[in-house]
């Protein structure tokens, strides 16, 4: 433990010296450090903080130094996390490359591919997007139809993806393509390519919340060098599933965030009024109390799962329920929030509403996607029934 103590002292000192003061404050949505070629930094400190951390490899603390990572042990990474939490340091980089692609590249990519791509993920130079879902496939991901034809030295990609998060902002894409049409799961390959390649066209999708975090992405005769295939030809499904595990872990540990810092019961007290210190609408009050208890139960379960997984070295079976429960909880919270605000919680824009109210209303609409994205709640329940409870498929 002595080395860790030393490491902690050094880390603390380094962070103290290098983390700008403005990076120790809560992060407004518009300052999210997605970086990439198109990335802008509204707050210049964000760029400074990213560059300093990336120089130490601490955007990817446990990745090998050879690929630009921090080369830290799990114990050291934990210390770094704790020390960052201690000063409330913002994450230096938000990145699907860090959270999803990097881990599978470390596992499946060639040495050359690792050396090419991982360092640029660490520094934030390249922002990645995920080419998975297709319009006709929905929850049945493996029925994807985007074709990649073997043209000797390259693949020719034609087809369409949907729900490509920030495809219009990304530099490269990791993309599932069909390389064999005669089989289903065994005909899928995992390709990487540059979004500026001719024939790639992302079109933002406007959501019910008014935002456009996703795109439809069209591929028309896109030439992808064969060296950009990860893993084996027709062996992409295994990589795809592994990547989804990382994606879900990421959603699980972060939850869905929830209403931006507003305490539901405070909103109800202020918007509905109070009698003897209680929310004036007794029915709403009981439902808010029930929700607060659900939220606490969820938070305690996340903690329990972490403790059990750490102690047991295996994943707690309760892990499987987290995504489903997190989605439901966030949706319940927003419904109660909107109900508590009354008409004041149903504004779209303009005068008559506070900025905060408008943000929460958009958040309510956005939350409806929680039970759809990253595996629908129906699929989650199927998985629990089958993998955890051992119930069989209908014949």
């Amino acid at each position: 433990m002595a080395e860790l103590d030393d490491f902690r002292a050094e880390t603390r000192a380094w962070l103290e010296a290098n983390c700008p003061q403005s990076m120790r404050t809560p992060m407004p949505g518009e300052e999210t450090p997605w970086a990439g070629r198109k990335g802008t930094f509204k707050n210049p400190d964000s760029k400074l903080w990213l560059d300093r951390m990336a120089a130490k490899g601490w955007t990817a603390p446990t990745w090998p130094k050879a690929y630009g990572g921090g080369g830290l042990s799990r114990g050291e990474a934990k210390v770094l996390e704790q020390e960052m939490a201690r000063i409330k340091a913002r994450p230096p980089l938000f990145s699907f490359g860090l959270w999803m692609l990097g881990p599978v590249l470390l596992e499946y990519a060639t040495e050359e591919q690792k050396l090419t791509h991982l360092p640029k993920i660490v520094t934030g130079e390249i922002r990645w997007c995920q080419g998975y879902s297709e319009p006709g496939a929905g929850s049945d991901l493996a029925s994807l139809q985007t074709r990649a034809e073997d043209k000797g030295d390259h693949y020719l990609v034609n087809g369409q993806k949907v729900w490509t998060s920030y495809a219009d902002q990304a530099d490269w894409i990791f993309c599932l393509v069909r390389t064999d049409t005669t089989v289903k799961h065994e005909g899928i390959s995992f390709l990487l390519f540059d979004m500026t390649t001719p024939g790639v066209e992302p079109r933002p999708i406007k959501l019910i919340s008014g935002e456009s975090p996703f795109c439809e992405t069209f591929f028309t005769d896109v030439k992808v060098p064969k060296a950009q295939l990860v893993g084996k030809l027709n062996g992409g499904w295994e990589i795809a599933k592994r990547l989804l595990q990382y994606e879900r872990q990421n959603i699980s540990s972060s939850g869905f965030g929830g209403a931006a810092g507003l305490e539901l019961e405070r909103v109800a007290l202020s918007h509905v009024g109070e009698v003897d210190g209680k929310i004036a609408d007794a029915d709403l009050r009981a439902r808010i109390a029930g929700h607060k208890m659900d939220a606490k139960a969820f938070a305690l379960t996340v903690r329990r799962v972490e403790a059990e997984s750490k102690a047991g070295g295996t994943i707690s079976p309760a892990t499987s329920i987290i995504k489903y429960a997190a989605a439901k909880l966030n949706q319940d919270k927003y419904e109660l929030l909107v109900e508590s605000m009354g008409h004041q919680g149903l504004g779209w824009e303009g005068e008559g509403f506070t900025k905060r109210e408008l943000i929460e209303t958009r958040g309510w609409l956005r939350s409806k996607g929680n039970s759809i994205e990253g595996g629908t709640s129906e699929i989650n329940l199927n998985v629990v029934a089958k993998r955890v409870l051992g119930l069989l498929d209908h014949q």
Partner: protein
Amino acid sequence: MAVLNEEQVMLRDAARDWTQEKSPVTALRKLRDTKSATGFDAAAWTDMAQMGWAGVIIPEAHGGADFGYRSLGLVLEETGRTLTASPLVSTALTAATALMLGGSEAQQAAWLPKIASGEMVATLAVDETAHHHPSTIALTATKSGSGYVLNGTKSFVLDGGSADLLIVVARTSGAKSDEAGITLFLVDGSAKGLTRQNLTMVDSRAVANLTLSHVEVTADSVLGPVDGGFAILEQTLDRARAGLAAEMIGTATQAFEITLDYLKTRTQFGQGIGTFQALQHRAAKLYTDLELARSCVQAALDAIDEKSNDIRALASLAKAKAGDVLHLASNEMVQMHGGIGMTDAHDAGLYMKRARVAEATFGGSSYHRDRYAKLGGF
């Protein structure tokens, strides 16, 4: 419970044909995307009035059809199906009701024909906060000479930005939450001292916040008894709730039918998603709730037409059950459509947005459960 007569069937069929053809959901999109100031299409409203819909409940003597609330409910259900924005609720339902219940002969003769013909938009201005509490009235009306002076604010008034006539609920005596001491006033939309702020709501319908700053009205602007306006207000609101509930049943039914159709056509894992039993049971439960809520709405409208003594309880029942089922139907519409339901290009979001605003209008389910319990003596 009354089944429809021939005239009612014709009215419903005409409403269905017109809304589906002339006022589909794209009409609402257009109003939204062009940021319409009035929040409805004047030409469409003229059409509707010409078909007699603005005067369904108004006596024949005042240019209406005197068909009753159940009949108006049939029209509202159809406009609810296609999310048609119009002054039906503010004017033809609520304001007309207030005038019919509380208006003098002269007031009725002056205003009801204009409502029936569709030439005038009128509305009830009651709430002063984001939640419905019809006895909590702070806007004051102070005697001044032979007339009154009004001071205060009103929130989320339906069609409040474009209304030619405002029926303003004011306090003439008593404390802020007393039922006694409430008086209704007819205020012209062009009155001096009246300012209106149009609000942009998620459902793209027109509502406005009003500020009345030293608005002077004459003595004959009083609608109903001075200090005793709450009874008329409550009766008006109950009719408005039942009528709005009819609109909401229409919205919920259409949301359900669109979703059911999607369940039948969308395939995944080589199966129509409608063959998955978990979705089948959810659809069957939603259908059950819809049928139960529909009965409540019909019963409330029938009770109004029959002048039964249980209108209050039935109106609260109808509003709450219609709200609950619309809430569920609109959420299920988004969820069962999956990703496409989250896009602005799909109609699911519009149904959900309209659902929440309608739920909150004239009291939500929580409000009406509490009221139902009070009426039941517990």
